[in-house]
């Protein structure tokens, strides 16, 4: 991998962006990607309608306190809370599962279809291709999260009143600032998916079957989520990638509690570094026989 000499030729630093653009366009044109996004967009609608029906004939159910579902009780007072609720509902499974599909298929799918060999003799360069695939997966993380947030915002605005936002700590902020916080939360949720995207990419670099890579990634996600709920494993839980996921709620406090948020982002960066390196080590030395 003597990438350095490439600079000696006509300097074309933007060519990797061309490949990235091709990759992103291709990913978002696939029916599978659109279907995943449609499902994600449907979740807030379902939650919103359910809440509307549930509270139409009685008082708000469920107590306040901590955790994602807590937001549900707020939704009827302020549609903006549907954004927080929907992100809290989709973050444990729906979002990472769709990331697992995209990341798992990224390299293994190309290997399975044989297009990987043509990309590599083009030559895309193994390191560059890996980076482009990871960047595309991260783009999908952001887009998927924003799809959930926007769908929730629209549904919330249609079904419930909007207005000042009462934070978890009791203080009120304007609707505009509430929107900003919602955007910040969406970004944090997207960043929370960096780890699972790296794991998916690594698994994808191991195999030539897109389906196997997707299934393994999603299976691993479910396993880790279950492990994260077993109290006897509390010693290892801080190192599991979903452990701090719901810390995004701390952005709804005044002042914001940064501790868990930082731990979450640090953990995601660690996963990206470890599994990204492992994927690189594997992919750059692998025999492409498919």
């Amino acid at each position, binding site marked *: 991998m003597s990438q350095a*000499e490439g600079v000696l*030729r006509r300097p074309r630093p933007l060519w990797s962006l061309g490949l990235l*653009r*091709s990759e992103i366009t291709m990913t978002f044109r696939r029916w599978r990607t659109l279907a995943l996004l449609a499902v994600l967009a449907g979740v807030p609608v379902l939650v919103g309608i359910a809440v509307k029906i549930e509270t139409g004939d009685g008082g708000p159910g469920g107590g306040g306190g901590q955790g994602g579902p807590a937001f549900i009780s707020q939704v009827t007072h302020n549609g903006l809370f549907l954004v927080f609720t929907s992100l809290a509902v989709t973050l444990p499974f729906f979002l990472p599962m769709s990331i697992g599909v995209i990341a798992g298929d990224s390299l293994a799918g190309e290997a399975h*279809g*044989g297009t990987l060999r*043509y990309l590599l003799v*083009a030559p895309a*360069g193994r390191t560059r291709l890996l980076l482009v695939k990871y960047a595309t997966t991260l783009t999908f993380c952001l887009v998927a999260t924003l799809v959930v947030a926007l769908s929730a915002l629209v549904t919330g605005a249609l079904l419930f009143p909007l207005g000042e936002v009462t934070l978890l700590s009791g203080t009120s902020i304007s609707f505009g600032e509430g929107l900003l916080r919602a955007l910040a939360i969406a970004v944090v949720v997207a960043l929370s998916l960096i780890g699972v995207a790296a794991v998916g990419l690594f698994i994808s670099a191991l195999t030539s079957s897109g389906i196997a890579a997707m299934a393994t990634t999603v299976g691993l996600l479910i396993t880790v989520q279950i492990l994260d709920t077993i109290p006897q494993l509390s010693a290892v839980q801080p190192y599991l990638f979903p452990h701090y996921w719901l810390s995004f709620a701390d952005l709804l406090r005044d002042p914001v509690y940064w501790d868990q948020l930082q731990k979450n982002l640090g953990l995601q960066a660690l996963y990206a570094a470890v599994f990204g390196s492992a994927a690189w080590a594997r992919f750059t030395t692998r025999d*492409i026989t498919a």
Partner: protein
Amino acid sequence: MPPVGAVRRPVAQPHDMGEPMPKQPATGPDGARPPARGSGPAGTPAPGPGVPSAGEWAIETRGLTKAYRGGQLAVDGLDLVVPRGSVFGFLGPNGSGKTTTIRMLMGLIDATAGSARVLGQPMPAAGRRVLPKVGALIEGPALYGFLSGRENLRRFDAADPDADPRSRDARVGHALERVGLGAAAGKKARAYSLGMKQRLGLAAALLRPRELLVLDEPTNGLDPQGMREIRALVRELAADGTTVFLSSHLLDEIEQVCTHAAVMARGRLITQGTVADLSSTVLGSRGPGRLTVTTPDPADAVRVLKEHGLTGLQITDDRVTGELPEADDGAGPPELADLNAALVHAGVRVRGFGTERATLEDVFVQLTGEGFDVAG
């Protein structure tokens, strides 16, 4: 499964040629190199920008070997030299190691031992510099079924670091026209027939002017008309100076388009050289050749030919075949035109007249002592 150390050699070749065919001298610029992924530019001449890659060989391998897990040798000590400007036929039954060799040359798999240079540069270390000058069709086409033919080509072109995005549309259109897919360019690739996919794969190899084209079984899945078109295209490209490395298990295909050929069997190189040399070796070992006369008067023909010194005369229906006599000292073998005149003079009506040329199939069978079947 035997340990990797205890590599079992393939069964001894029945006709392990004592002397290889007219083999080009191995003029490697330096000694044996390690298989070298990531060995970096240490042994690389590292030409500056715009310097044409040096070297007389488009492809040169030294002891190239690939052992798969379990120690089975897919390619065993290959010393292949492909002259620049040649149309090089890479011949062998299915499973003889052709595709594995091509994958090693293209840097897709690592060699277990030995080294390979493509366009004068070590592979896979110099892949970034070499591969933009190489168009490849490896083990059949692979396409994105959900993209149209044109979008597929745009995708592969985007992966080429040296391809200029500004000329992409023009080059894609030109490549599509060249393989006769202009009309089907907007169709989704999953709706393509195998022949159309094959053409699109070829178009991807032709997206830019190439110094070397590596075509693995390029006529697979094509109808006879398509095969003729592809052969014409190969000749056209070769006339422009492109070196074409063409693997095939179809002997007549190689014979029709190639100037040079190499024959592989069971992972080993049996022979390499010009197609003419390969044919003449076999011819030479068989003497001047066999004459075949097609005539409604076989008995008379046999009598006349016998008088002119032909031996081993055989009659099959209306075909008479016989060995031409060895050339006497001073005198050449009998002039064929004279023989024909003698037949006609004797009242033999001649429908067909000619000598049998050794085909590559004869060469192959003679070299390997076996039929042209899938290697076991």
